[in-house]
């Protein structure tokens, strides 16, 4: 496209809609990381081949077809649809069918029965375990029906089609920003929406933009922080994979608001698919004249670069991320000066999280009031969470701020599972939120609204949005140690309290877990935690003690059992484990005695067995073979 020629969104949308109208059906196959791992792309290829074998017209790339056959079937990919556990997912529209756990062997039947015969295949439908009912489409599945999808709304479109994004109203917000709004009007609109940064801090996005707008200088930058390093979180990955154009449009609007003409998307290297999708979306947008010079005839330019990270958690911190883009070690700098004044190459820079930027086009298109109509007054809008761990439905969800934990864990998540994968209704122990910077929530907090401020009050944080559900068989001291190990590994080493303090905290936790702790250990652990918190420069060090402090606060008796009784109540800590057979539950089946590698178990058949503590090596084999849950403490 000639850069002086103005892009006409209306024509692109009309052209796309006309092509789409010729197709009779659309089959959408989820191509997020999870479903691809389960073979969804093979399903797609097989489906196309099976239709062609029957001489049926198949369209694979609608945008590249000049002559779409009337009545054809359009087979498209989508980004992550969120219900990863039930993948690969396959949607058939306009029939409103969602098939789950589809594999290549099911394809022939789908073609014969559903696409040709118009019959629904019951065995591929999702069955709601609570009611036992088969659900035909997503509106019947509680996991989807109870969500409010704004950022994820477009995650069923073809991510490689800029045309479809435009047909869904995409880039109209950017057009508005470049042609009819002033810088100040854009900042004011985003400020009025109450949008708060989704990367963890919750700082008002509009204010950040205002500060950067006010910084003088002809050269400014916009950076999208896609370095989602928080273990247990994958919201940003899903947005970049499923809706990359929303991120690009959000960045264009941010650039217009602050007067920047260049931007970087910094994507975590562990997300190869996200890197590829953002890169190709950037190329498509350039080809359409949506990136480059003279955008929408405004005379303004915006160029976008995609940079792949190299594996450093601390680069999620904005000053460290900037250092990384400049080709240096990703170590944080003291603030002020804030990036709004002196950021990339010393120029004023706005740096926003993926989800924040993906929310911006919606705000400009629909208005601040509409955005505020969901969520709470202080935390408006919706939030995506990665729901994982010991829960029936794992996956990606989006709910309004203020939804309760109960709603998320029980109604959307379908309840907590024990280690054998069963829901008993009694297994909920804790939810870890906010990853290595966050804290643990307890059953007492199930009805607390989830928003920035309520979570802060109880010593946790929204963070990037990882929710890891843990059952009663999880040792909270081990969980704290897990996060400590993580921050210790990832500490960049600049601040001594963080570098050395995390090491000492890890050693103290090892003492507790391995039975070497005494009455001073917990106090020393708390004192070290406070020193790390006040003595560190960046968010990594400041929040590194949170998982320890939060578990100490809510699960202190578990720490005390380790320290004073030298026992791990869950039996997870091998050094403290002391397996025991509950006589009341033991049926005397002899399975454990036969499997014990050191012959420590004795007992007559059909009589309760006993473990000889002197011989036992605490390997846990007895527990894993027991069918009556009679072995505890290992």
């Amino acid at each position: 496209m000639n850069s002086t020629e103005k892009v006409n969104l209306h024509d692109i949308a009309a052209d796309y809609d006309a092509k789409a109208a010729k197709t009779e059906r659309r089959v959408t196959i989820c191509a997020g990381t999870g479903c691809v791992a389960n073979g969804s792309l093979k399903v797609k290829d097989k489906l196309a081949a099976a239709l062609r074998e029957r001489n049926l017209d198949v369209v694979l790339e609608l945008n590249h077809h000049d002559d779409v056959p009337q009545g054809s079937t359009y087979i498209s990919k989508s980004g992550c649809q969120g219900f990863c556990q039930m993948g690969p997912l396959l949607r058939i529209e306009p029939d409103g069918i969602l098939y789950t756990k589809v594999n290549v062997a099911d394809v022939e039947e789908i073609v014969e029965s559903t696409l040709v015969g118009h019959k629904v295949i019951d065995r591929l439908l999702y069955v709601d375990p609570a009611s036992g009912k088969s659900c035909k489409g997503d509106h019947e599945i509680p996991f989807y029906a109870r969500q409010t999808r704004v950022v994820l709304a477009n995650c069923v479109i073809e991510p490689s089609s800029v045309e479809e994004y435009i047909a869904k109203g995409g880039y109209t917000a950017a057009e508005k920003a470049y042609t009819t709004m002033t810088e100040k009007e854009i900042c004011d609109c985003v400020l009025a929406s109450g949008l708060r940064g989704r990367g963890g801090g919750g700082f008002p996005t509009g204010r950040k933009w205002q500060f950067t707008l006010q910084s003088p200088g002809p050269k400014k930058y916009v950076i999208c922080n896609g370095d989602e390093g928080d273990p247990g979180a994958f919201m940003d990955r899903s947005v970049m994979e499923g809706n990359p154009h929303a991120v690009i449009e959000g960045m264009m609007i941010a650039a217009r608001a602050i007067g920047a003409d260049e931007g970087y998307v910094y994507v975590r290297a562990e997300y190869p698919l996200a890197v590829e999708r953002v890169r190709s979306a950037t190329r498509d947008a350039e080809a359409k004249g949506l990136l480059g010079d003279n955008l929408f005839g405004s005379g303004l330019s915006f160029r976008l670069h995609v940079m792949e990270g190299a594996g450093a958690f601390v680069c999620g911190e904005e000053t460290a991320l900037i250092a990384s883009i400049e080709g240096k070690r990703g170590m944080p700098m003291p603030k002020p000066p804030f990036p709004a004044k002196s950021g990339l190459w010393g120029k004023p820079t706005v740096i926003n999280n993926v989800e924040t930027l993906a929310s911006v086009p919606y705000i400009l298109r629909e208005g601040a009031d509409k955005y505020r109509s969901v969520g709470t007054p202080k935390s408006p809008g919706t939030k995506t969470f990665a729901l994982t761990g010991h829960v029936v439905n794992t996956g990606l969800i989006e709910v309004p701020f203020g939804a309760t934990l109960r709603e998320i864990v029980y109604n959307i998540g379908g309840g907590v599972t024990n280690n054998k994968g069963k829901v008993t209704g009694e297994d909920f122990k804790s939810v870890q939120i906010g990853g290595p910077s966050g804290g643990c929530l307890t059953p007492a907090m199930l009805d607390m609204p989830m928003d920035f401020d309520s979570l802060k009050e109880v010593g946790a944080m929204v963070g990037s949005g990882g929710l890891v559900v843990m059952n009663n068989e999880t040792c909270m001291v081990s969980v704290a140690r897990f996060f400590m190990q993580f921050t210790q590994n990832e500490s960049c080493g600049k601040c001594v309290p963080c570098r050395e303090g995390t090491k000492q905290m890890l050693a103290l936790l090892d003492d507790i877990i391995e039975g070497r702790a005494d009455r001073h250990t917990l106090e020393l652990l708390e004192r070290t935690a406070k020193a790390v918190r006040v003595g560190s420069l960046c968010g990594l060090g400041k929040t590194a003690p949170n998982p320890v402090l939060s578990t100490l606060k809510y699960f202190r008796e578990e720490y005390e059992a380790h320290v004073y009784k030298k026992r791990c109540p869950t039996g997870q800590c091998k050094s403290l484990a002391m397996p025991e057979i509950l006589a009341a539950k033991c049926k005397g089946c002899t399975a454990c005695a036969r499997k014990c590698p050191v012959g420590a178990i004795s007992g007559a058949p059909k009589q309760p067995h006993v473990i000889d503590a002197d011989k036992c090596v605490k390997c846990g084999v007895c527990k894993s073979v027991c069918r009556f849950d009679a072995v505890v403490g290992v």
Partner: protein
Amino acid sequence: MRETLEKTEAMVKHLAAVNRILEKHQYDEAKLIPILQEVQAEYNFLSRDVISYVATSLGLPPARVFGVATFYAHFSLEPKGKYVFRLCDGTACHVKGSIPILEALRKRLGLDAKTPTTPDMMFTIETVSCLGACGLAPVMVVNDDVYGQITPAKAVEVIEEIVAKEKNAKTE
């Protein structure tokens, strides 16, 4: 004399790819990370010679390039095996039992935390902090193939399959 000449020629050949990559990035020191990423993709790891060569070419002290290469987890100063197993140890994978899988893999190959690669350069076992496929926890990636909801037994099976495949390839 001839020997030296041959050695130099081999070296020049060996570094041709580095030159191409440096050229592509116009010897821009700000592109150091993408340059090292591409160099590593070409040679499988960053040798000391290559790091020094990149540093000299960019007009940087070698210490600066070493600093970057050792800071980021993705850069490896040691060569890796033909099959790199990356086991996710993110929170979700951890609570769903990633450590027993790691132990099973290491036990099968006789490896530990200090020796991640088998002597025949066939297997490397690593952990990563999160692959972002938490819905499928526990997750393992072998080169580019993702395996979801794995168990210690399934993970070892993957090794056995590769061993069998490599054996067949040798006899053919």
